[in-house]
């Protein structure tokens, strides 16, 4: 089983696909839900505070806007743990939206810079592309399975 970073990190479809093929999805759907559902008055609705933007300094310099750094405080630790990644470019809002093009650029770069298997896909625009999309994700995840030292032994 590999820890697979998904981006957009809020994508339930990617998260589900990764889990179905026996890997651990590294996304933010659950952690964002937890944040939203946790009672607190600090900073609704996401319960993120200025400290989160400060934590993001590990991945982005101080001059990078706080919104990017706040997002990086969520995605950065996931990228650090990732053993593989699936990145989807130009996704539809309904697929999972991270809301900031600059964050997208940085996240994708940090993932590419890591020496891990990465599957990069364009968001499918029709049914045919959708089938191909799922097939590519499936093949990639199966490939991880066979390459996994745990499985190999």
């Amino acid at each position, binding site marked *: 089983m590999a820890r697979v970073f998904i981006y957009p990190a809020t994508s339930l479809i990617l998260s589900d696909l990764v889990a179905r093929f026996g890997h651990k999805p590294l996304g933010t759907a659950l952690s964002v839900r937890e944040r939203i559902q946790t009672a607190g008055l600090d900073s609704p609705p996401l319960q993120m505070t200025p400290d989160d933007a400060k934590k993001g300094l*590990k991945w*982005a*310099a101080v*001059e*990078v*806007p706080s919104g990017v750094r706040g997002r990086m405080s969520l995605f950065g630790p996931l990228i650090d743990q990732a053993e593989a990644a699936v990145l989807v470019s130009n996704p539809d809002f309904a697929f999972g939206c991270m809301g900031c093009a600059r964050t997208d650029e*940085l996240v*994708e*770069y940090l993932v590419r*810079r890591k020496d891990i298997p990465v599957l990069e896909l364009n968001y499918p625009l029709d049914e045919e592309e959708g089938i191909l999309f799922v097939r590519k994700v499936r093949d990639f995840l199966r490939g991880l399975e066979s390459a996994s030292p745990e499985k190999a032994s």
Partner: protein
Amino acid sequence: MSNDTVRIAQLSCGPEYSGVQKEIYTAAEAVGAEVFFPDLSLADIRRNFRDFGLDVRSGDLKLAIARAVALVEGSVEADGVFIASCFRCAEAAIVRNELRRYIHEHSKLPVVSYSFTERTTSGTLLTRMEALTTIARRRALLARERQTGLTMGVDSGSSTTKAVIMQDNGIIGTGWKPTTEVIASADEVIRLALEEAGIKRDDLEAVGTTGYGRFLIGEHINADLVQEELTVNSKGAVFLADCQHGPSTVIDIGGMDNKAISVLDGIPGTFTMGGICAGASGRFLEMTAKRLGIDITELGPLAMKGMGDDVPMNSYCIVFGTQSLVNALAEGHSKEDVAAAACHSVAEQVFEQQLQEIDIKEPVVMVGGTSLIQGLVRAMGNLLQTEIVVPHHSQYIGSVGAALLSSGFVEKN
């Protein structure tokens, strides 16, 4: 490479349209350097940009990325790299940071980066450009690990002027005074250092100057070496902290600006120099000491007794920082807690504003007068989660570096 023209590759987005490109040329020219834009074929630009993997939208940033890859691969030759982009541009800030890191990790090229506004002048860029050229031009000099002969270093800082006399790799005389009149202050600290060392001015075999007043004093005392404080302080720091080999990080929180320098084998690789506001400098700690009615030398021990966590203080701006200070005292917080909070606030500013811009590698060495404020050192150690090294004579770091490096001129003289 002696005094040949140093070629600095410029990777940038926006300076031409901000009206500051001429300032960059002027600063480079003032230190005998030439700024150039690496030429690449369109195919190479496309390939390098794609391979790098940072998919930015800005065309100039794409070009900067492609040029950085060419420099690292060696298809374009340069002695140093200057990375510049507009202040407040998010995409450029990401690129600047990643390029600096990439070049630092994959080559030996010294890099300096800067975010400019339309108000940036050549004067602002001068010390950075000078450091770049020094690293390129004087690599052999910077490699010096032992002080030889009888030499003196004078550091004319914004707050204080210091002099150190060294002989056979040891310090034999020191002088320290607040900077008032630049030349008069230097003359006084030189007198003190000579007196302590028990020697005459004519006995000195070589002399070096650094700091803001380096040119003026260099001319006044006929110095052999006149060098900016980024390289000199790095050298002094690793010499005194006995970490001349391998990586280290030097932090110097000064009276007017701060320096954070990533050093490898005693030679700076990347560095930042700045300080958004006096609130993030030693000046704020001086003000704090004044408001608490104590001498600056008492601030450190006082802060060590306090817990600053409950005192809200944000010295992002010295005016707001002072307001926080006054409010905290009015609310009944103890002097100890306020002193600790002030130290934490300055350390936090430096940590957030500057230390994110370089790769922190242990050992972390704190130098300069502020390194004697234990509360500040403790706060920085807590933020970096590491034991900070404060070498002996840390307040004389520039002078020691200048005395050490100027011994390279002993034989010549």
